[in-house]
């Protein structure tokens, strides 16, 4: 993530960090260290939604909504969560992929909500990019890098780029940029299918959006 942020002139944190830097940063709430937590930012983002027909007349290339789904799993209290290791992504992820007619293997680039490092691990597992409990191995060795198993959070994510509270909109904006080929150094070559996944509430609200470069 930080490597991606280093290439993003708008990212809040751009200096490269190591695993040692993370585990040596002070503890905030065990086992999360400061560098396991997202940054705190001011900021905003927006996107324009219109019909494919109308978009054809617009100056910028459109991207297409291939599928989407959301899930709400419990009320706004962590004590109401049935299993701390499974989020609503396990419900809305497969549903969104089915509606889009794709599988996780078809995804070229992902923007995954990353309030904390653990949020990313839970999400890659629950969306089906790897088996439950294998998220650590999946992200290891630059697995989420541009040449990795699943290029993820190419703007640097909430952990490095920005987190003004409503991070979800940035996930969509970065997905659109990737599909338009506008990402420069962090462009995933030939990206045709992007997934934006947001997590909210107390790990209680999840939403998955599958976007495509080409008209379905």
């Amino acid at each position: 993530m930080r490597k991606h942020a280093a290439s993003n002139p708008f990212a809040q944190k751009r200096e490269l960090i190591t695993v040692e830097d993370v585990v040596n940063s002070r503890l905030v709430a065990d086992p999360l260290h400061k560098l396991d937590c997202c940054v705190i930012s001011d900021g905003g983002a927006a996107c324009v939604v219109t019909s494919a027909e109308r978009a054809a007349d617009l100056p910028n290339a459109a991207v297409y909504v291939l599928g989407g789904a959301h899930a709400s799993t419990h009320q706004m209290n962590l004590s109401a969560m049935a299993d701390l290791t499974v989020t609503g992504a396990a419900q809305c992820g497969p549903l969104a992929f089915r509606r889009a007619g794709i599988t996780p293997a078809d995804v070229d680039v992902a923007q995954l909500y990353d309030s904390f490092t653990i949020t990313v691990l839970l999400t890659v597992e629950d969306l089906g990019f790897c088996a439950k409990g294998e998220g650590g191995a999946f992200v290891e060795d630059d697995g989420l890098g541009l040449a990795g198993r699943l290029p993820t959070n190419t703007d640097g994510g909430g952990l490095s780029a920005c987190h003004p509270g409503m991070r979800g909109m940035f996930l969509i904006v970065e997905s659109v940029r990737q599909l338009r080929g506008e990402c420069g150094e962090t462009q995933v070559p030939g990206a045709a299918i992007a997934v934006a996944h947001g997590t909210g509430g107390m790990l209680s609200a999840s939403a998955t959006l599958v976007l495509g470069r080409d008209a379905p």
Partner: protein
Amino acid sequence: MTDAATPSDPRPPKPRPAPVPDPDSAPYWAAAHDGRLVVQRCENCGTYQLYGRDRCLVCRGPVVWVEASGKGTVYSFTVIRQNYARPFRDWIPYVVALVDLVEGPRVMTNLVDCAPEEVAIGLAVRARFEPVSEEAGIALFELDR
């Protein structure tokens, strides 16, 4: 990293914040004030639940408050090492835990009177109580040694 953790606060300690009871929660707070832990039981399907609600979450049946054993086990926990809000900043480091009561409901609570290093998932704990107003008390938990 050289940045400081929560700086110390020269002001006198602030008491634990008191809840504002509403019709759904008042029996819970009142019982805790008197040193008892109560949970809701569904009169229809028998499911136990917390926090207090008007209906059973499972079958929408009517619920009654019943006394719980006050015993449970640690489902998960964390040690809070940064919090700028009073009075919590005065307690750092302190343990926030999710405790599974033997009756079934899971509650978020503080584990007190133990070092953070002593806490582990699965440990047996029991409730103790701290009055925080004339009408409410808070259920805290301690290790059931």
